């Protein structure tokens, strides 16, 4: 059955009120009846029932949400992100109160506004309207089905409206759900955009962060300057006149432990401990006569600690210098380790 919307224009409050009354008597329910005006008129003047809206509820809910958000920001997140702030309390009463106050108020305002939009059905495509309403005329609008149409029209004309408009109501889908969904999606999108910025996913700088790259030179950063012409190279302090500049370390347990570890890293690449062991991958590149000797071989056992130290520092034969790898003290650790090795039975 088709629904119709009617809008009657009246010149004053009196006749509008009468029309409302007449329409109600015809059987139009209060719900489908609207009085349109250019400024607020109390429902009493129009002879209408008081409209019980739930704006207070919406504002209250907003206030609660704002309060909860404030508590979340002020109380819970500092626990989630325990920043080291040098003994100052992460929770502090008075500042927290300020935050709670502001966000509660913000929640109330937003809640009130959203409640207003929701309950007023905004944004709506409207319905019948007449520009004369904005000029001071009053409109009485009803929505009735076909059965009641005749009677309603009669009731209208009995009060001599300035104008009477009629339109068929086409069923429209409820757009609130759509709008709500769009709003939520938009909010999420904004949220994710913020997250993206804060997570440095894109490394997007609006202006170059000059502190990220510095004008100072860090270790091993080019361009490296060569030594000035005529500079005398310093041979280093490891050897003086071909002899170690530092004294051997005592064969303590610490030293031996360190030595064993360092041997594994720096020496075991080529050298084996026992002669029976298979040669390492690197050593296999050497011709048979040039193979690195095993540590327990007679050749190595015959060396003095100072000689071994010098070999590590300077290299010997095909063995490169390991000065870059080991500090002098560490070299002595390795020497200690090598000296402590005994041939396998």
């Amino acid at each position, binding site marked *: 059955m088709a629904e119709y919307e009617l809008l009657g224009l009246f010149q*004053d409050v009196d006749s509008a009120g009468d029309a409302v009354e007449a329409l109600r008597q015809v059987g139009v329910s209060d719900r489908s009846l609207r009085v349109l*005006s250019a*400024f607020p008129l109390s429902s009493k003047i129009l002879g209408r029932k008081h409209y019980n809206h739930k704006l207070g509820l919406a504002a209250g809910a907003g206030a609660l949400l704002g309060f909860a958000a404030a508590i979340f920001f002020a109380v819970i997140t500092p626990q989630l992100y325990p*920043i080291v702030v040098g003994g100052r309390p992460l929770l*502090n009463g008075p*500042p927290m109160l300020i935050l709670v106050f*502001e966000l509660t*108020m*913000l929640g109330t305002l937003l809640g009130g506004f959203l409640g207003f939009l929701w309950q007023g059905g905004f944004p709506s495509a409207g319905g019948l309207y007449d520009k004369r309403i904005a000029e001071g005329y009053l409109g009485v609008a009803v929505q009735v089905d076909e059965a009641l149409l005749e009677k309603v029209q009669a009731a209208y004309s009995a009060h001599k409206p300035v104008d009477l408009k009629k339109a068929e109501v086409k069923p429209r889908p409820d757009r609130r759900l759509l709008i709500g969904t769009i709003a939520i999606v938009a909010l999420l999108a904004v949220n994710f955009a913020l997250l993206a910025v804060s997570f440095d996913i894109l490394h997007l700088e609006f202006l170059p962060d000059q502190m990220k790259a510095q004008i100072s030179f860090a270790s091993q950063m080019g361009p490296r300057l060569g030594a000035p012409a005529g500079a005398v190279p310093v041979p280093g302090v490891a050897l003086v006149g071909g002899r170690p500049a530092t004294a051997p370390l005592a064969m303590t347990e610490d030293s031996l432990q360190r030595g064993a570890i360092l041997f594994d890293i720096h020496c075991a690449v080529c050298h084996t401990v026992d002669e029976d062991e298979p040669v390492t991958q690197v050593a296999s590149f050497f011709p048979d006569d040039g193979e690195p000797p095993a540590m327990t071989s007679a050749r190595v056992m015959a060396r003095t600690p100072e000689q071994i130290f010098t070999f590590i520092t300077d290299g010997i034969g095909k063995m490169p210098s390991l000065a870059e790898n080991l500090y002098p003290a560490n070299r002595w650790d390795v020497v200690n380790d090598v000296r402590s090795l005994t041939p396998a039975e």
Partner: protein
Amino acid sequence: MSIETERNPWMSAPPESEDEQEQVEHLRKDHLLLDPVGMEAMNQDALGSMTRHGRWTWMLIVVLGGLAMMAGVGWLVQLFVGLGFTGLNRTIFWGMYIINLVYFIGIGHAGTFISAAFRVMGFETRRPIARAAETVTLFALAAAGLFPIIHLGRPWKVYWMIPIPNQRQLWPNFQSALEWDAMAIMTYVVGSVLFIYIGLLPDLAMARERTGVNWRRRLYSALSLGWRGTDRQWALHESVSTIFAYVIIPVMFSVHTIVSWDFAMTIQPGWHSTIFGPFFIVGALYSGVAAVLVAMGFLRRFLKLGYFIREEHFDVMAKFLLIMSFAWIYFYFGEFLVTWYGNLPPEMTILDLLLYGEAAPLWWLMIFCNVVVPVGLLWMRRVRRNPGILFVIAVFIQVGMYLERYLIVGVMLGRPELPFNYSWYYPGLEIPIAIGAFSFVIFFYFIFTVFVPIISTWEVGEGQFLHGLRKIGRKITKFKSDMH
């Protein structure tokens, strides 16, 4: 102002005797709410004001827009080069950017006060000027919101002040007054924008109906959200306005209190004061009401809104201004009395500096603008009812209040505890940017008046209707429908 009228039926009956006629005529001339001309005429007048910008106004708009753009360029330069072109130094780290922030937030207080507090208190005089005042708030807040960002050394990192979860697991410091500031200003801006928008809805709908089919109509249709003015919509509208009015007043007070805490929470001599909260609120209302007076003068003079904005409104606002000036003087005197009595060397240095030192010219000029001019003139009824003179007085107060903030931020900061660090502030790039900010506010105010009815006709109509009811009492309340 002559407007063709078609008297609505609820207007009072024609006066019976000649005496009454004279009395009624007198009242009518004086009071907007007793001088109804009908909604149509009012709508026409209010909407017509959008097209009443003359050639000079448009030229002014262009100039103002240009100045605002210039400030934008200045800020871009600052963004890429650093804050070096400002007059800040190693003693005075806050300058005109913060002064502007405080000043514009102060201006932004009057609009809310007039529309929300006057609404709550039932002052009928608010009706025609509320929107004009709220618009001042809106754009002053927009300018004020820019300045903390302009002020920053690395503004592109400003989002670090917002509590959003991040991989660094860092959180803003809610113990910092600046963080409170950010929260309070955000709340206030959101509240003010929504408040002004709610009030605008019916007028946007009215504008929608009264414009031909063009882009304007499309704009108004979208903005008015399909407002029809049904009784239910009006009931919701009333309620939401009341909620906003009651909530936004404490927010307004909190905002400037918190701004004052930016200073009061430090240990800088001259700033470390407990009365800064109420003192700043009073100062804010003082300069804000003066700014609204400037706007009202402009609307009346250039947009020819003399029907809506009458001498009675100027009178009320001027009285309010006078009260605020007394309150301001009280706080200012109180603060310095305490300083003088306490006699602490760092504080006395500042007092001496203001009274007879380097800053004395500025200080005495401020006293002249803020005390001598308003207190000396505003007690006269003739002055209070003269928009021209009021305009001048209001400009004086703007200068005075700007100077007051300048002295607090730019001058007092130059006198820290150790005399080795004494310094003086010579603003540089801040001046064009401040000029740009003023232009920005005025520019957008102008533009706003082009697009939106600056007078809330539905509020005036409602007021006139209610007055009509009150005046003829019994005669009109006897609706037939009321009997049931």
